[in-house]
């Protein structure tokens, strides 16, 4: 039987939702229920590439990312589970003058914050990092060996199991139909299995956060965009870093199982709830991969799938309390980089929900920033 009353309800069983549940329970709020419309990591989390990057173009994002890697690196011990965490680095390729100018600025900023990032020439890339890479047209690259990756499914499951051990109840296949409010305060959540009375609700449902928030009269400026991804047959490991290029819009890495997993963002992708696979993606992505790594040409692709970015106007997440609805918290709009900052962000959101002062100020990421005037975006988004 699902609880009919709880101290807090978390909506969404992705990595951020399960992590918030875990950190709330760890902080003493164990009477929590997490409701998920489908299965754990069935949304954006389970469909993402699993990269964990610290190389960002703004100071705030870079600091948050550094903190997240710190959390990730001790997560296996903390949660008592293997999440395939690997500090294999990120190699970011520059192809244009614009890339080069931006990357030089980024590296100066990142080095100032203590990040182990450096600039590599094309020869240094193939000599030191990825011998199989085709560097035709590559001007330079930035390389940060402490950037990392992990398995999103294992990470989410590890958080969920750790949360359960602390008393959190997780209800799968339980879609939320309405967030209930009275006099500007949250009173409960109505689900397919019944209503849970609660004074605290955290909305962590990715692109689906928008219709959920709307039931409480809250408008979130989030637009869903499909992104596609594919995976090859497994091979013995032959490269370690995540390789990305903003101008090609591509990213790929080799997972522990041995598969190469990667995708690219189609700039012409129309907005909408769409997770289907397209033939155009399969052919274009194959060509891009074969161009960047010619030896992948005779490697078979075994699967492709689609997922959704929950994109905000500044490609930054929406975190924290909601003006006008007391007890209603948001953690969505991660714009394609939720997994990599999940541990730290979840910890901070849990602190806010529990009424504590967060160890990093996240007020700059509150939804009210969109009402206060134009926003600036981080340039390091794939």
């Amino acid at each position, binding site marked *: 039987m699902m609880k009919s009353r709880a101290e807090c309800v978390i909506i969404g069983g992705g990595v951020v939702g399960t992590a918030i549940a875990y950190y709330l329970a760890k902080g003493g709020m164990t009477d929590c229920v997490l409701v998920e419309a489908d299965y754990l990591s069935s949304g954006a989390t389970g469909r993402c590439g699993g990269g964990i990057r610290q190389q960002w173009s703004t100071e705030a994002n870079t600091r948050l990312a550094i903190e997240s890697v710190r959390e990730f690196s001790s997560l296996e011990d903390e949660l008592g589970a293997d999440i395939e965490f690997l500090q294999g680095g990120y190699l970011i390729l520059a192809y244009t003058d614009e890339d080069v100018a931006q990357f030089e600025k980024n590296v100066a900023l990142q080095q100032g914050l203590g990040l182990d990032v450096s600039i590599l020439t094309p020869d240094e890339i193939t000599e030191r990092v990825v011998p*199989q890479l085709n560097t035709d047209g590559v001007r330079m690259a930035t390389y940060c060996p402490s950037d990392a990756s992990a398995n999103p499914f294992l990470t989410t499951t590890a958080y969920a199991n750790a949360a359960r051990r602390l008393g959190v109840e997780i209800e799968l296949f339980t879609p939320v139909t309405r967030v209930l409010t009275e006099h500007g305060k949250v009173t409960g959540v109505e689900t397919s299995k019944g209503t849970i009375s609660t004074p605290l609700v955290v909305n962590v449902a990715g692109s689906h956060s928008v219709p959920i928030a709307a039931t409480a009269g809250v408008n979130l400026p989030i637009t869903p965009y499909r992104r596609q991804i594919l995976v090859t*047959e*497994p*091979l*013995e490991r*032959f490269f370690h870093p995540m390789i990305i290029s903003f101008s090609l819009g591509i990213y790929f890495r080799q997972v522990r199982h*041995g598969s190469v997993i990667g995708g690219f963002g189609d700039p012409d992708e129309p907005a909408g709830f769409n997770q*289907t*696979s*397209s*033939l155009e993606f*399969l*052919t274009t992505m194959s060509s891009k991969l074969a161009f960047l790594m*010619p*030896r*992948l*040409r*005779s*490697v*078979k692709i075994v699967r*492709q799938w689609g997922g959704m970015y929950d994109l905000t106007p500044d490609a930054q997440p929406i975190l924290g309390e909601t003006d006008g609805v007391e007890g209603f918290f948001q953690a969505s709009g991660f714009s394609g980089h939720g997994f990599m900052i999940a541990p730290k962000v979840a910890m901070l959101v849990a602190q806010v929900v529990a009424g504590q002062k967060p160890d990093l100020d996240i007020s700059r990421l509150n939804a009210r920033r969109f009402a206060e005037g134009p926003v600036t975006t981080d340039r390091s988004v794939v």
Partner: protein
Amino acid sequence: MRIRQHPILEFEKGPLIEFEHDGRKLTGHEGESIAAALHAAGVRVLRHSIRLDRPRGFFCAIGRCSSCLMTVDGVPNVMTCVTPLKAGMRIETQTGKGIIPDVRFTHPPADPDYPRDLGNVPLAIVGAGPAGLSAAIAAGRLGVECVVIDENAVPGGQLIKQTHMFFGSKEHHARVRGIDIGEILLKEIEDLPVSVITGTTVLGLYADRVLALLRNDRFHRLTSDSIILATGASENMLAFPNSDLPGVYGAGAVQTLMNVDGVAPGKRVLMIGAGNIGLIVSYQLLQAGVEVAAVVEGLPEIGGYHVHAAKVVRAGVPILTSHTILRALGTEHVEGAVISQIDPQWCPIEGTEVELDVDTICLAVGLTPNCELGSQLGCEEAFVAELGGRVSIHGAGLATTVEGVYIAGDASGIEEASTAMLEGRLAGLSAAGRLLPDLDRNELARLKKEASEGLRTLRAGPFGEHARAGKRKMLELAGVRGGDS
């Protein structure tokens, strides 16, 4: 161990050629599968597994299960059960995951008959087995242009290995051997607007009925107005200790090896399953000169036709009902098996264990419909145990829940070749009805009725009980969700 003499079959083989296996020179016949050539040369271990380094042989022999992956000419993870042998090939036992190829990939030369964009076809049929070919004949006779695509080198699906005669009435090809039925169907399409593309895998189906094809390591795109999925089924596995050892083969694989390639799977076989497939394959093994130690069946009764059982028993092979296999013996490949009696709760009865001296264990424990392509297109599915697993929901006319997409044969629920042919015909008629608005509706209705009645006749009687129950459930689901035609 090549079969030199066979009472029914003559094996037409390609020329004898040399190839290299782990540095050793071997000979085989050009065009036969690499796995068959190796088996004939006594090689059963094709690779070692990724995590536990266990030896692996082939299992399904039709390119479904990935048990036979080897490194061929430097390229890892090649499915050797469906890759034709060529002179001078360098074949290596693969240990673990395989290494990224260090060879410069070269496309085979482009074939002017097969451009990258193959244009549009009114009706695309996936699978050239009994269902797919029958669908092409039915639609082709009404004037629908069809393309039938099959990943095997030879069309006919599983018919090409059926040496037994079929039952039923004359119009359902009774008293004709499966291998000959395939020939008859292929002959029939000769004068029709039907083309068959073999050696071509449908990699995926996309929105608006677009097919992605792989042929000769080249990618092709084909669009269609209508699709019939006649993708057949995959062999079921059974879990027991050492069930992954080389020498544990699916029944279909054993048939391929001995009836298509002319290679004996072993010297002494234990057959698991006394359904029709288990019984027929046991008899075919005897025909090929292979000893069958026993047929083991978990149920208290034989599942297949008694005519088939009688032939096996007459040859002196015991059929052991209420028995199961406990484990396979051996380290690199099968060297024996332990069987035992089971109680009515299917638990082994202690003290009844018997060790059998066999080198091959053949699993004939059922099939699962291949539903992946329908899934990709968004066809709604349901799990129906009587049909063998997950199946695209379909109505009486075999339409799925996606407009213009039909299903037929084992892919729509496990039955046999005779019903597959009638389902194929029915699906072909349904597709033609949709594609040709000017078709005489009375004539179409008459043809569909004829096929439906044929199906009813074949499914009558106690052996059709499963199919009847399964199809009844399917109709109820289709009624709720649409998909009838």
